[in-house]
């Protein structure tokens, strides 16, 4: 959150703004204005701004995207600043108002949206922010041209200045807005006016992230940090099994506990509200609740996973065809067929900031203020309005920094909880709801478990000519992202999915289905290559020979890792190639403790082609972080569900990677490119699991078919 003082203002002053969005555009200073999705209405409605320039030459740029650690809060304004030729040192970044019609990206359909998921911030806003920046530049040049009475074509811009080339005269942007001669009609801008990416001055340079200074001194504000005068604290016990409803058995006892102010009964949980957070947590622990029986209580994740292989052929489940090309069945030239099954478990987000939100209702309960960390501010506002029964226009939603998103904070269940509590509680005070880590796990929304069956056919020339990939598991659309193999040249392909509902909540988890699906694809590819005695690099090169861009990525990582050299004794190296927005190729070098079954990843090399990269240094850190998160998920992370309940409850029984298991070196190379930028935040995860599994095969001659590769599982594989 930008304003560090917002948590210190007194209650009267923060409530009096209710009902009016606080940003105001004052005529003459607040130009230029641009709205992407209301072009036809521009003359009739108030227009929102992306940029404000003040006479002291400060440029304020509105950032539309959630900042969850991916750096978009800096990257998006850089794009706009580049096209308007702003002096970056004079740029101030503010979060935009929540209005998808103005500040949304194109999304994946026609409806604009503000949700930042799927590493889509830079990719989704790139074109529009460039146009907005170009419009700013055009307006400033137009005013200067009128002021100097010189033709527009004689003017150029650089670093907050318009320059008259023939005379060398200069006007700063601040001086120009001070002239007060804003055009009444904003100029149309077309893509021909955009800069040639070759001429970019700040895109592609190492600009420091603006959020970092306040993240090293404790000043960065997450919603959990909000403290309001008179604030009360809520703790919740949520259904341990989805759909189960509570009956509170000791209401009077709880109300008599010190500090307890109120109890709120929800359909899916019981809430204690208290004077301070510890009193709320203490009372929560003492709740005696009888939960209703629901069918989901029969569900055991491990048993169910073992049924998947037979369910794959069960006609009572609908099969969805995801992709087909050619004909995988009638190929007479096949002389060799391969098939393998791969399994993976549920995985938890484990974002470090437990889910929480702060809701303050006005005394007459007709307006509200909310503080929350959300990946989807527009849907969050809509959900809050609906839950509170208050119009969205009478709610101010303050966007705070997210202490990790990874997909989990694209959902709004925790915010809806906070709104339900504020609405139902009889106390008239701002309320901060904090889920304990135990809530975060028991009400987790996981990356789905699945079984994947891969089948491939090879012809007499040693070419793969058929490829079939079937996935079965929960999670619907989350299950099959990454199932396609767009760069591998295999003429006949068929991809299918069977969805099963287990009444377990699933959710996008950084890189979605790519992590488990690319693991299966790349491990299978390696298994085939080894079987026909071809080096895995050579084997993939043949499949990528018609895709120079993809081939270059593969060759780059091979060179980085010196693939053709001998692997050190006791180590194994594995290779993978895949795409998640960006194209990546990865080599992992591992060792193995034969006694314990523990795999250690020592070195990782990764080549990444993400098109044009806005902030290379930040891109590298994102890729590094993604590799570490992927190693964590591939080696350690597993949610199990017994009798409908999540068995893990906190970091003592849900381990994530720690320092001791971080690779000694991680080398990354970004392929230089001027192609349209694509997402980077998730790109590095999917290749890691396969590269580790393949390194294990190179080291031991045995294959790992189930992720995560926990020591007990590895030991079993070694013993067979």
């Amino acid at each position, binding site marked *: 959150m930008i304003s560090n003082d917002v948590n210190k203002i007194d209650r009267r002053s923060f409530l009096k703004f209710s009902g009016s969005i606080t940003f105001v555009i004052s005529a003459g200073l607040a130009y230029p204005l641009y709205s992407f999705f209301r072009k036809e209405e521009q003359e009739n409605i108030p227009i929102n701004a992306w940029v404000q320039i003040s006479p002291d030459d400060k440029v304020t740029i509105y950032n539309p995207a959630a900042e969850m650690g991916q*750096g978009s809060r800096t990257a998006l304004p850089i794009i706009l600043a580049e096209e308007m030729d702003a002096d970056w040192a004079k740029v101030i970044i503010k979060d935009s108002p929540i209005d998808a019609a103005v500040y949304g990206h194109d999304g994946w359909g026609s409806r604009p949206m503000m949700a930042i998921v799927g590493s889509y911030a830079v990719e989704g806003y790139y074109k529009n922010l460039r146009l907005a920046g170009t419009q700013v530049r055009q307006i400033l040049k137009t005013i200067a041209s009128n002021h100097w009475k010189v033709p527009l074509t004689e003017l150029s811009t650089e670093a907050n200045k318009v320059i008259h080339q023939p005379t060398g005269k200069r006007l700063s942007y601040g001086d120009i807005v001070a002239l007060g001669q804003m055009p009444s009609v904003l100029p149309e801008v077309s893509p021909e006016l955009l800069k040639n990416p070759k001429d970019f001055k700040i895109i592609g340079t190492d600009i420091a*992230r603006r959020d970092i200074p306040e993240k090293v001194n*404790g000043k960065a504000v997450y919603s959990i940090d909000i*403290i309001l005068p008179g604030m009360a604290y809520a703790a919740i016990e949520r259904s341990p099994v989805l759909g189960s409803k509570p009956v509170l058995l000791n209401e009077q006892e709880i109300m008599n506990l010190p500090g307890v102010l109120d109890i709120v009964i929800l359909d899916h949980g019981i809430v204690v509200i208290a004077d301070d*957070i510890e009193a709320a947590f203490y009372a929560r622990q003492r709740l005696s609740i009888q939960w209703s029986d629901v069918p989901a209580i029969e569900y055991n994740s491990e048993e169910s996973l073992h049924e998947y292989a037979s369910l794959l052929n069960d006609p009572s489940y609908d099969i969805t065809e995801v992709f087909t090309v050619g004909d995988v069945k009638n190929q007479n030239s096949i002389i060799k067929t391969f098939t393998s099954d791969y399994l993976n478990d549920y995985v938890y987000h484990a974002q470090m900031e437990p889910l929480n939100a702060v809701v303050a209702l006005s005394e007459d309960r007709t307006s509200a203020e909310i503080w929350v960390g959300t990946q989807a501010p527009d849907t969050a506002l809509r959900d809050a309005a609906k839950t509170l029964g208050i119009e969205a226009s009478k709610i101010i939603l303050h966007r705070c*920094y997210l202490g990790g998103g990874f997909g989990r904070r694209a959902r709004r269940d925790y915010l809806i909880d906070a709104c339900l509590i504020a609405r139902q509680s009889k106390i008239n005070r701002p309320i901060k709801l904090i889920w*304990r880590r135990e809530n975060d796990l028991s009400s987790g929304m996981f990356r789905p478990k699945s079984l994947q069956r891969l089948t491939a056919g090879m012809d007499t020339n040693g070419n793969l000519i058929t490829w079939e990939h079937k996935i079965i598991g929960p999670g619907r659309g989350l299950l099959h992202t990454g199932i396609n193999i767009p760069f591998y040249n295999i003429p006949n392909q068929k991809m299918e999915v069977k969805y099963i509902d287990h009444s377990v909540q699933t959710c996008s988890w950084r890189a979605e289905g790519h992590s488990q699906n690319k693991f299966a694809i790349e491990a299978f590819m390696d298994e085939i290559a080894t079987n026909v005695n071809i080096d895995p690099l050579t084997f993939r090169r043949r499949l990528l020979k018609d895709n120079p861009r993809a081939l270059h990525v593969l060759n780059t990582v091979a060179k980085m890792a010196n693939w053709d050299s001998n692997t050190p004794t006791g180590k194994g190296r594995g290779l993978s190639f895949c795409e998640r927005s960006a194209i990546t190729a990865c080599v992992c070098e591992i060792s193995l403790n034969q006694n314990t079954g523990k795999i250690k990843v020592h070195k990782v090399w990764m080549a990444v082609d993400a098109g044009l990269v806005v902030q290379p240094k930040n891109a590298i850190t994102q890729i590094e972080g993604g590799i570490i998160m992927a190693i964590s998920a591939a080696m350690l992370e597993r949610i199990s569900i017994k009798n409908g309940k999540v068995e893990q409850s906190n970091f003592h029984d849900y381990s994530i990677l720690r320092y001791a298991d971080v690779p000694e070196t*991680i080398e990354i190379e970004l392929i230089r490119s001027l192609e349209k930028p694509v997402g980077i935040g998730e790109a590095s995860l999917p290749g890691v699991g396969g590269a580790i599994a393949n390194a294990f095969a190179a080291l031991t001659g045995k294959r790992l078919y189930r992720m995560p590769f926990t020591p007990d599982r590895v030991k079993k594989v070694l013993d067979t």
Partner: protein
Amino acid sequence: MKIAFKLNGKKVSIDCPEETKLLWALREKFQLTGTKFGCGIAQCGVCTVHLNGNPIRACVMPMSAVDGASVVTIEGLAKKDKLHPLQEAWINEQVPQCGYCQPGQLMQAAALLKANPSPTREEIIEHMNGVICRCGTYHRIVKAIQQTIDKK
């Protein structure tokens, strides 16, 4: 119970039940929200502060143990306007991503350098192992700590 202690160099006191945890006293009573809540059971380390110079997990530390002691939080790591060398290195290496665990990481690292001004990579890893980071900034944190040592 009345508890008097030193907080970031200043004498403070608080009246609270003795089992009140230092984390919540810092965050909600003293409004020093840089120290974070992550797990509540001393497993994640994001609540790390210094108690008499030692890194401890504030989420399990009762206020009764703080009486008469000296506590330093992330807000007290910089000396007036001068950032701690680790904070500078964190900026140079662009360490934080979501940033939530970083106060804990910094406090843990600062305690190490105080006790051992030039730790080896192995010593850094062993000392830092208790503080987890979901964004995966470990690699950069180790670099930033090494950079600080090299500058000395």
